[in-house]
């Protein structure tokens, strides 16, 4: 007798982006074996990983989780969250854990919570480095001990194994730190004997929930079914349809190669994948394969503090000034440098011109060929302290405001400021400093699990 399909409800593209209650209820009507959500992304940049702060809003995350956990606990369905707090470091995990504990307490829910840590101790990475088990992901630079020391936080992307271990440990709700995006969806299907290739490919689609439908949405649910040699995806809102093109197109999203998708423990091979329109709303997919690699590796992500930022926002509508802009910027930079040449710390000062290469920068094909009648100007200073960044930004701003460029007619001031105050302290600035692979013998050992009966 053929087994029933394994059913997965994916609630939203990123935990905290929200979903319509009607879609969630449609999903629950289909009796899911698993309710899961991916909470992570490196898209918002290095700041959130480095600073240990979530890029999603606390109340929004709590709202989404409250629906998921109440329904899951009531009907004894596992609830799995991947990459807590967006970046999946220890502070992100603690932040999300506190939200879950609040939900349990406020709703008087009793369940076993598993929390899986993905932030690695620096000594572990250093030992890996010494043993030759760390390799850069092109074009990241080689890792050094110094760089590890300078890095604020390093996380590793877990695969399916830690999730399965937590599930076997009796967890009703699994909160994971940094995880390979599909793993929170695929792991329990694999634990129940379903195919790894199909489960991983379905996980890749479900991690963005309704983004793979037409019209796409980052804040709606999606439902997945895995059978013996296929999987199916179904939108849960009557507004949306999954089409072969919308689902196949999502497979391309944010990936360099649509056919070979590397992950922990191996890669997903989609060269033989077929997409079939089963009903006007549902797409059936076959032929996706998982190919295990000889060595087990996990991807490391780390960010380090570069300094502190202050920005000033202004504009100009003066065509003479716009023509002379390169000279003006050069002149302002020289004045600032001259003013602070005795300062111990270096600084970074830049001028972004919206209306001239502001969006594409070095990639702009119309570089230095402006047609705008006005420029938006963002003056940015980054320095070792917030005070120095404030000083550099303020000096650059006041110098530019009164800079006497050649041919100037408007002597009262060169800049239109939309705000008072004109300068904004943007705080800590981080950059990605680790983007490497770490070889591990045991795919669970580096991801310790803590259980708590709430």
């Amino acid at each position, binding site marked *: 007798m053929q087994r029933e399909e394994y059913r997965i409800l994916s609630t939203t593209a990123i935990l905290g982006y929200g979903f319509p209650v009607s879609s969630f209820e449609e999903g629950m009507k289909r009796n899911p074996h698993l309710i899961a959500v991916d909470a992570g992304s*490196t*898209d*918002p*940049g*290095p*700041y959130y990983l480095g600073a240990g702060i979530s890029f999603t809003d606390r109340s929004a995350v709590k709202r989404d989780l409250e629906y998921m956990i109440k329904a899951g606990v009531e009907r004894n369905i596992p609830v799995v969250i991947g990459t807590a707090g967006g970046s999946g470091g220890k502070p992100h995990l603690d932040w999300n854990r506190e939200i879950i504990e609040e939900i349990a307490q406020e709703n008087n829910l009793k369940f076993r919570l598993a929390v899986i840590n993905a932030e690695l101790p620096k000594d572990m990475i250093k030992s890996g480095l010494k043993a030759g088990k760390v390799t850069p*992901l*092109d*074009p*990241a630079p080689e890792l050094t001990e110094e760089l590890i020391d300078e890095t604020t936080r390093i996380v590793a992307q877990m695969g399916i194994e830690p999730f399965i271990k937590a599930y076997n440990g009796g967890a009703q709700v699994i909160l994971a730190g940094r995880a390979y995006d599909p793993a929170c969806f695929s792991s329990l299907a694999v634990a129940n004997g379903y195919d790894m290739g199909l489960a991983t490919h379905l996980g890749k689609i479900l991690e963005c929930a309704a983004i793979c439908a037409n019209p796409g949405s980052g804040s709606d649910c999606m439902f997945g079914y895995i059978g013996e040699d296929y999987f199916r995806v179904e939108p849960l809102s009557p507004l949306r349809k999954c089409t*072969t*093109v919308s689902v*196949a*197109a999502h*497979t*391309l*999203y*944010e*990936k*360099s*190669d*649509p*056919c070979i998708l590397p992950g922990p423990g191996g890669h997903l091979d989609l060269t033989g*994948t*077929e*997409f079939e329109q089963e009903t006007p709303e549902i797409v059936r997919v076959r032929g996706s394969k998982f190919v295990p690699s000889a060595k087990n590796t996990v991807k490391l992500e780390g960010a380090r503090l*570069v300094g502190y930022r202050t920005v000033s926002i202004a504009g100009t509508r003066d065509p003479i000034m716009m023509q002379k802009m390169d000279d003006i910027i050069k002149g302002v930079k020289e004045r600032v440098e001259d003013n602070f040449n005795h300062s111990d710390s270096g600084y*970074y000062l*830049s001028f*972004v011109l919206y209306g001239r290469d*502001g*969006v*594409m*920068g*070095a*990639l*702009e*094909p119309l*570089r230095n060929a402006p047609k705008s009648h006005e420029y938006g100007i963002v003056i940015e200073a*980054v320095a070792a302290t917030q005070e120095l960044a404030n000083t550099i930004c303020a000096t650059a701003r006041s110098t530019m405001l009164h800079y006497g460029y050649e041919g100037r007619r408007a002597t009262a001031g060169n800049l239109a400021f939309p705000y008072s105050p004109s300068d904004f302290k943007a705080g800590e*600035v*981080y*950059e*990605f400093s680790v*983007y490497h692979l770490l070889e591990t013998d045991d795919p669970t050992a580096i991801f310790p699990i803590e259980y708590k009966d709430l």
Partner: protein
Amino acid sequence: MKTRLTDIASVIRSKNSGPYELTLDILFNEQADFEKIRQAGYINEELICKLYSVTPDKIVSIVAFPPAKAIKATIKRPLCSGGLGETDVYGAQQHAPLLDLEFEM
């Protein structure tokens, strides 16, 4: 007569693929148009280099994905996402040079 890419492609977009790469997707409406553009090799290294002011060593790959009627080109970002000098952290507004493309069909 030349055909504008915006008349035959329903999706033309850019996005980060990890913090070091930028990937460009063109999804065609019709199988026939996809095949023509693909077989003619219009979307090639030379074109991407010209459109994005980059040298060939910055091109990671240019591949077709028939199930989505799509052609995808990936280049190395000038900076790791969010580094000093960044203009587009998500890489989501780097598609515009593709919008003006025209082809002899």
